[in-house]
């Protein structure tokens, strides 16, 4: 008995050992990847800095990191940076939430009436192939130069593709799940809420991810065209006064904020998909 127990312990500790060394190797690999990533980034930034300071590259056009950093820090301290960031982020969030919601609602409408879906099909295809930012002038005149036009622009960029993708996923729900509801004589409304929508939730979340990227396009182009505030405005302003340090600085902020938003949506996705 004692011997068997001993044996069990050996086996357990062997499994533990293997697991520990597996974890160790995994951690080592992660550390190596992260180190190389940081080294690469530092190297590129330093190269840029050195090239800029020694005028190997056109400083007017390319600027260099410390100059950009100083400019952003100054703007941050005198309080002229954050309102721009805030307004753009607000517009982007509003745009991509509205785009996803309206797109899903449109998809629901098309699912509800297959006849309507068939009738609207060519119209949607045409709208999808059109470059939506070309609607800019119409939106500005229609909604006035300000936040509504910018959000409308974002909506225009996101809504059609969301409709198409979500409608497709509605149609591709396993017909046997639909059959389960039909067997209990469920209405179309209860079919939608109990099967179609929950089964398509992963797709809707992933369109949310795509829409984060698309919304940035809509918002920045919108701000290029009309606004007096926002990161898109800073870029255009920097371009007009030939301050490319400001342009690149704004780009850097966009990159950081857009990544944060993308990660936030990924986190939301993980949270919602835990059970699948």
């Amino acid at each position, binding site marked *: 008995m004692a011997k068997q127990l001993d044996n069990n312990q050996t086996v357990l500790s062997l499994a533990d050992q293997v697991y520990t060394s597996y974890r160790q190797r995994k951690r080592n690999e992660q550390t190596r990847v992260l180190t190389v990533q940081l080294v690469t980034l530092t190297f590129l930034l330093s190269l840029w800095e050195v090239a800029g300071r020694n005028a190997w590259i056109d400083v007017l056009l390319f600027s260099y990191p410390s100059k950009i950093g100083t400019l952003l820090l100054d703007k941050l301290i005198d309080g002229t940076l954050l309102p721009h960031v805030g307004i753009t982020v607000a517009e982007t969030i509003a745009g991509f939430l509205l785009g996803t919601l309206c797109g899903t609602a449109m998809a629901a409408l098309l699912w509800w009436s297959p006849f309507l879906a068939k009738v609207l099909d060519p119209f949607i295809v045409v709208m999808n192939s059109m470059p939506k930012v070309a609607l800019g002038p119409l939106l500005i005149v229609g909604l006035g130069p300000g936040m509504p036009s910018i959000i409308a622009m974002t909506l225009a960029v996101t809504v059609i593709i969301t409709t198409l993708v979500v409608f497709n996923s509605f149609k591709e729900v*396993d017909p*046997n*799940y639909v*059959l*389960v*509801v*039909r*067997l*209990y*004589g*469920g209405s179309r409304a*209860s079919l939608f809420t*109990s*099967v179609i929508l*929950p*089964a398509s*939730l992963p797709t809707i979340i992933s369109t949310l991810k795509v829409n984060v990227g698309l919304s940035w396009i809509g918002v920045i182009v919108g701000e290029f065209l009309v606004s007096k505030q926002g990161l898109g405005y800073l870029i255009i302003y920097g371009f007009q006064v030939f301050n490319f340090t400001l342009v690149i600085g704004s780009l850097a902020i966009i990159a950081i904020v857009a990544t944060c938003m993308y990660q936030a949506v990924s986190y939301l996705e993980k949270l919602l998909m835990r*059970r*699948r």
Partner: protein
Amino acid sequence: MEAAVHMQDVTYVYVTERGATLALEHIDLTVQPGQFVSLVGPSGCGKTTLLSLIAGLLQPTRGEVQVGGNKIVKPSPQVGYMLQHDYLFPWKSILDNGLTGLRLLNRLTPDTRRYTQHLLHEMGLGHCESLYPQQLSGGMRQRAALVRTLATEPDLLLLDEPFSALDYQTKLQLEDLVSETLKTHCKTAILVTHDISEAIAMSDRVIVLDRDPGTIRKEFAVPDAMRRAIPFAAREVAGFHELFNEIWNELLVMNGEAEKDGEATGQ
């Protein structure tokens, strides 16, 4: 007493983009309450179509289908349907899956909820209430699907190859469980299967269907001794193999005729 199922001269034409095919022709079938009937036959003989007609998912082109004396025109809560796969909703817990039917029928009350929990216990799934389908094995999932089907207390159960996707051992265990459950709850059942020994072991009558078009070819009564035994034991009852061979030969003869027909029409 009213027949549990009564099909009178039922014909069904199946329409696709390519054209229409005669799936079932002149089906007359009566099943008495509490009876267990199996349908066997080659693939494409319209077994699933037959179940869909009884379930009210399809409407007969000719003839009439009655369940418990009522003409069936749409799915009715009197009829429970079990599919080859469980089709439990992956986004719902096992208990919620069990309650699906009750929710859709607006019959979810504390009583029916307790009954569903009782069924889960009866099927050995009492500890799985809050788990999700993907955390369960195939056999457990199929048992959960059975709970979902029984929770709405249908009088008639339609079983469309519910054991065919399971491994052999699980299949045998589940056959016994389903058979016992149906007996204790006094349900009528129609089982579609490819497995002749499963058909004999579980049922009171075995019906062999012919194809192109689907018709009832022959009916076999299962002897009392086999009917009384649980499915696992029924396979050991004397006469089981003779009956098996009889049905097997019927299917062979049918196949031979189909091949000859094929040659004659030059197919």
